[in-house]
């Protein structure tokens, strides 16, 4: 059986005069029942990758790939209407800021039932029942009351729970979550991630979770792909990645996660100087070389792909 989501050699470019290569040859798969984390800093192309799977890229973006398939079916040649039938139905997505992705003018109930009525053609009554069930499922007490409320009447954590319930309305097989907890308090973040992990396991979802925080990745992922400047620079099973991160960028990201009780007060925190560069389509060599402590002249030309185990790969001149 083919993987749930297969991405091979994905390229996304923006702009005509000064083209930016947002994604450069990214490849990974999401299997049924696994949580695959895409991790990297702002501007590394992780959100663009997710949006190009859903075909929700901004107008003017150019998407190419050797393969982009959902359950073995090609997504690249799919018509807009064919894509609309999948989106929100078999594959669903939740975003970082639930306030901007919920419509402030409609009640929670009408937004939740719309997706089900549209894709599954069920009546309003059955749709409302399902919405109430799912709100209870995501840990919302008094779902009947919440269905009649507007998004502004809910707290940030509740809104994100509503978003998750809404994404589950049509029983998707693939759920893409783009920084679902970044705008939330740490206490609520832990609750939402725990909920996602439980749902993923109980419903056998394929979950593609996007985050900038390796602390989250460690706790929830089955597999990890680290993205930098549009490329997947390291990919491994979670335990392998944390036991032996190979790419200097992954090592740097790991040093940035604050761990209570392990900080020497007189020492600076680990950090990666600089920011992700914006690069054009003709860029050659390693994009991390300007921020890397191990870079030499060879990094400006070729970057070999190394393997450090059966499912552990990384792009760097340094050997495993």
């Amino acid at each position: 059986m083919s993987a749930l989501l297969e991405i091979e050699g994905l390229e996304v470019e923006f702009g005509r005069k000064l083209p930016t290569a947002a994604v450069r040859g990214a490849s990974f798969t999401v299997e049924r029942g696994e949580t695959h984390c895409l991790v990297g800093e702002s501007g590394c192309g992780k959100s663009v990758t997710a949006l190009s799977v859903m075909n929700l890229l901004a107008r003017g973006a150019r998407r190419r790939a050797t393969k982009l398939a959902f359950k073995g079916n090609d997504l690249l040649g799919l018509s807009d209407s064919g894509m609309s039938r999948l989106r929100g139905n078999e594959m669903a997505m939740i975003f970082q800021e639930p306030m901007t992705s919920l419509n402030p003018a409609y009640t929670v109930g009408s937004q939740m039932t719309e997706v089900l009525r549209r894709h599954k053609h069920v009546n309003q009554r059955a749709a409302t029942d399902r919405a109430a069930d799912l709100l209870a499922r995501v840990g919302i007490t008094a779902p009947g009351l919440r269905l009649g409320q507007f998004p502004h009447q809910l707290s940030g954590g509740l809104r994100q729970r509503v978003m998750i319930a809404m994404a589950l309305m049509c029983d998707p097989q693939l759920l893409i979550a783009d920084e679902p907890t970044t705008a939330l308090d740490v206490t609520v973040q832990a609750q939402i991630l725990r909920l996602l992990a439980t749902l993923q396991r109980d419903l056998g979802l394929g979950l593609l979770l996007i985050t900038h925080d390796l602390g989250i990745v460690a706790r929830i992922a089955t597999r990890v792909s680290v993205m930098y400047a549009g490329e997947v620079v390291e990919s491994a099973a979670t335990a392998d990645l944390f036991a032996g991160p190979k790419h200097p960028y992954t090592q740097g990201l790991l040093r940035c996660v604050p761990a209570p009780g392990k900080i020497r007060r007189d020492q600076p925190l680990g950090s990666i100087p600089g920011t992700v560069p914006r690069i054009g389509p003709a860029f050659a060599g390693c994009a991390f070389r300007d921020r890397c402590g191990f870079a030499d002249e060879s990094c400006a030309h070729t970057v070999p792909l190394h393997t450090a185990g059966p499912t552990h790969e990384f792009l760097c001149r340094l050997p495993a």
Partner: protein
Amino acid sequence: MSETTPIAIEVKGVRKTFRVKGGLLGHDRHVVAVDDISFAVPQGGVLGVVGESGCGKSTLARLILGLLPPSAGEITVEGQRVLTMDRKARARLIQPVFQDPFASLNPLARIRDIVAMPLIAQGSFSRAEIARKVAEMLERVGLSAEQGTRLPTELSGGQRQRVAIARALVLRPRIVVCDEPTSALDVSVQAQILNLLAELRHDLGLTYLFISHNLAVVEHVASDVAVMYLGRFVERQPTEALFAHPEHPYTKALLASVLTPEPGLGVPDVGLGDTLPDPANIPPGCRFHPRCPIAEPRCAVETPPFKARPGGGVECLLVL
């Protein structure tokens, strides 16, 4: 900190309530944002204030900055009542850095003009002096002269937060109130900004009030940590002591919700339940009891006494 260190910030019995209109038929409600808080921060000290959204930590910041009058109690900075101080003198003494560097910088002004604004507002600096001070400060926070000529939209989130820090420090204040200065940033950039703030405090002898919802973030910068819940400090201790022996169940929950990069541990159950704190409806007895994993019946009735500890104390009926 020795007994003779002068006090930079002193807060005595401060209370702040807001009246919220009850709508067409409802009654007006009183929200108690800060409920009888007293503390002092010695010169050169850093008090980290940690709590969830709605606990009153930002209100506390605005009271100390003199942007809001307290409903009761008194706040002095370096011995002067903050409310009755001359605005220009106050600006030379105490400055804020806010969370969102996207919202707090004028999008139409060049970076160097944004940083120059506090100097211009003083009305006593020559053009040459302003240009010199701005250039010095930009360099001090790690921005180039060329970046000074750009607009905020042309900079990354971390660079924008550097601009906000430069603007806060250009008058060489003695006290800086940082309200969630890294919450909108990637973890990798967060580390850079925390290091910069720690370095500036050391080099310029600053005093900070440092607010965050994440305990792990304040560990590196704070000398003392206060945990705030529904308007009160429920625990306060020197940083090392708090992280080594957290006492209040809420402090423990906040610590448990920090996701350290340790695979295999899964997402923790923070044990706070789904009841969210409502500052308009503070529970009787211990205000934390509805969410407390170890609450006993008496916690709903008795007000927890303050139990002193070296350099702080804790408010819980169940600790010895």
